[in-house]
């Protein structure tokens, strides 16, 4: 252990000064948005493993904001997004939300697409009592009695029902292997899929969880091969995992049809896995061919951002539009009128489907089934479970 000499003394002062001046800068830079605008607080990953998805979410929301403003705004006022990074972590989401919710001039929010992060902010949302659109698809989020959560995507009880329905009724396959991530999204999805299959009196021949971000899936693939399953249902969280699994499935000669949760159809997965995903089915809350609205959005999105649109951007687009419409309908930004106005929305044609809000706050009740035909996502059918 040596002593700090004289030169470092000066340098350490310099370093401290650096840190201090950075912080001063930071405080100075905070707070700059026009007072007149209606603000929409948005929590999204800017850093961390889901940062790419977060960027798409911002693009989608941003396009909706521009369109609403171009059409005259809400009650004659412009709307703007106030975005905070959730770092793809739970504490990050909580901090980001508390930063937004402590600004009294933000009346409405868009939350995370990740169920755990929505769970993490649940209590604070309840406390502040303002509407929040969420993209997390864990069914319990809206059903646990929080009146302020509204979902701009179909929840997993529908995704599982659609996967099971398509596999059993359309593909006529009965020996299921269920593969899922052991995170909250994957475990709940797999649970829902097992329940949905039970309705067809089918017990899966294999239910296999895996831990996120694994370098290798050989044991999982071999288990699928051993089980002699003739159809695979899956809930993957990260596209890298999906890509590795898909490649190894091909390599080890498993040819059973595969119906995956929405991640199997998104742009990143298609790019990473390439031919390994050809011929698979997926369910998608967003497909460009499913409606004229979706088609128009997809074209515009591709032109603006040079990437194919997917559900990461479509749900935030819908959420912004729905919030704008609800505030316009309510002629208010106060929580309770806006809440009522959202629940009153019926037959609204969004990108993800036609919104009919139920009393719990779920707007959508079905999914599209799509097929990956040589890298192109082709709309196959829409399955709805009204009520």
């Amino acid at each position, binding site marked *: 252990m040596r002593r700090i000499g004289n030169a470092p003394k000066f340098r350490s002062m310099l370093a401290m000064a650096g840190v201090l001046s950075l912080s001063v800068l930071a405080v100075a830079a905070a707070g700059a948005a026009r007072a007149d605008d209606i603000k929409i607080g948005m929590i999204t990953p800017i*850093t961390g493993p889901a*940062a*790419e998805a977060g960027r798409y979410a911002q693009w989608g929301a941003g396009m909706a904001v521009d369109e609403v403003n171009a059409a005259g705004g809400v009650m004659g006022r412009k709307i703007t997004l106030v975005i905070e990074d959730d770092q793809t972590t739970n504490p990050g989401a909580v901090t980001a939300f508390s930063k937004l919710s402590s600004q009294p001039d933000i009346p409405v929010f868009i939350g995370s697409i990740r169920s755990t992060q929505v769970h993490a902010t649940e209590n604070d949302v309840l406390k502040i009592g303002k509407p929040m659109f969420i993209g997390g698809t864990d069914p319990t989020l809206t059903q646990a009695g929080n009146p302020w959560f509204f979902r701009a995507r179909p929840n997993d009880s529908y995704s599982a029902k659609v996967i099971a329905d398509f596999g059993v009724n359309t593909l006529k396959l009965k020996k299921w292997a269920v593969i899922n991530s052991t995170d909250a999204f994957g475990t709940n999805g797999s649970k829902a899929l097992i329940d949905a299959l039970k309705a067809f009196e089918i017990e899966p021949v294999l239910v296999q969880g895996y*831990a996120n971000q694994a370098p290798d899936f050989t*044991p999982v693939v071999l288990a699928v091969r*051993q089980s002699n399953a003739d159809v695979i249902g899956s809930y993957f969280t990260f596209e*890298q995992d999906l890509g*590795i699994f898909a490649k190894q499935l091909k390599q080890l000669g498993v040819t059973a049809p595969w119906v995956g949760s929405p991640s199997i159809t998104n742009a*990143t997965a298609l790019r990473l896995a390439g031919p390994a995903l050809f011929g698979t089915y997926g369910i998608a809350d967003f497909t460009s061919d499913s409606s004229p609205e979706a088609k128009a959005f997809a074209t515009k999105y591709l032109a603006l951002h040079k990437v194919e649109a997917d559900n990461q951007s479509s749900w935030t687009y819908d959420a912004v539009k729905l919030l704008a419409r609800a505030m316009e309908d309510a002629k208010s930004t106060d929580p309770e009128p806006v809440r009522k106005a959202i629940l009153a929305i019926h037959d609204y044609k969004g990108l993800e489907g036609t919104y009919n809000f139920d009393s719990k706050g779920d707007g959508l009740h079905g999914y599209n089934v799509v097929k990956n035909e040589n890298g192109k996502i082709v709309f196959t059918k829409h399955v709805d479970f009204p009520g």
Partner: protein
Amino acid sequence: MTIVFQLLFTGLGVGAIYALVALGFVLIYRATNVVNFAQGEFAMLGAFLMVIFFGDLGLPYGLGLVISLIVMAIFGAGFNLVVYYPLRHRPYLPVVISTIGASILMSNGMLALYGPAPQTLPNLLDLPGLLIGGVFLDSQYILIICVTAALVGFQYVFFEKTLLGKKLQATSQDKEMASLLGIPVATMIMITFVYSALLGGLAGMLVAPILFVSIGMGGLISLKAFAASIIGGFGDVAGAVVGGLSLGVIETFGAAYISVPYKDAFAFLVLFAFLLVRPQGIFGERVAQKA
């Protein structure tokens, strides 16, 4: 039986990835007595450089590789100057924290520069892989295993047979003695960092076709590589390779026959048991003899 061989091959392939990164750990540890927590990020950086030069700029693979490695070498030198060298006389913990800071800086710097999208990098060998008796041998895994073997061979020859290698070895064993013998210790450490950066970068390029290229790929591998180096007895090149390979095999078989979700636990449990039952096996009386 084919399943056992399939698992064995995959385990060795995954293990070779751990071993490649572990080699970098071990080299820097031997030269500086510090664990470089940014070693995984060297791999991430190397893979992204390859994506930029080969994928985006469309250079030929060989040229892209050479340029990427040159950049890695420069980066390794810079890393030494900024992250390690100013702290060289300090106890090891501040240095470790400094490397943790570097790993945060590198991954988030790359995020800012290149964006969050995971990228793909095609296989160097555009071969479909081999199918022998029902066992599929992925060409990229074969390549990784071969490169790891070659590097171990190269390292052996380099350290045991060349003058520079011997100087490096002397430096890593006793810096004061080495400098008394007229070996430029600072230069030797610089060479070590450059070499480790090259090694890490190469590892990243090699695993990219399997794991894809993402900001988080470094963290994914480096923890296991760290475990591999410990199993191998930290400081031993052959040990790191044996540690890496056994780790890969253990976790692959553990996943196949015991539990997939607990896969990451097996390696650590084995390590745990090993350290508990036979600590003196690795440790001996070395500590006591310093009295």
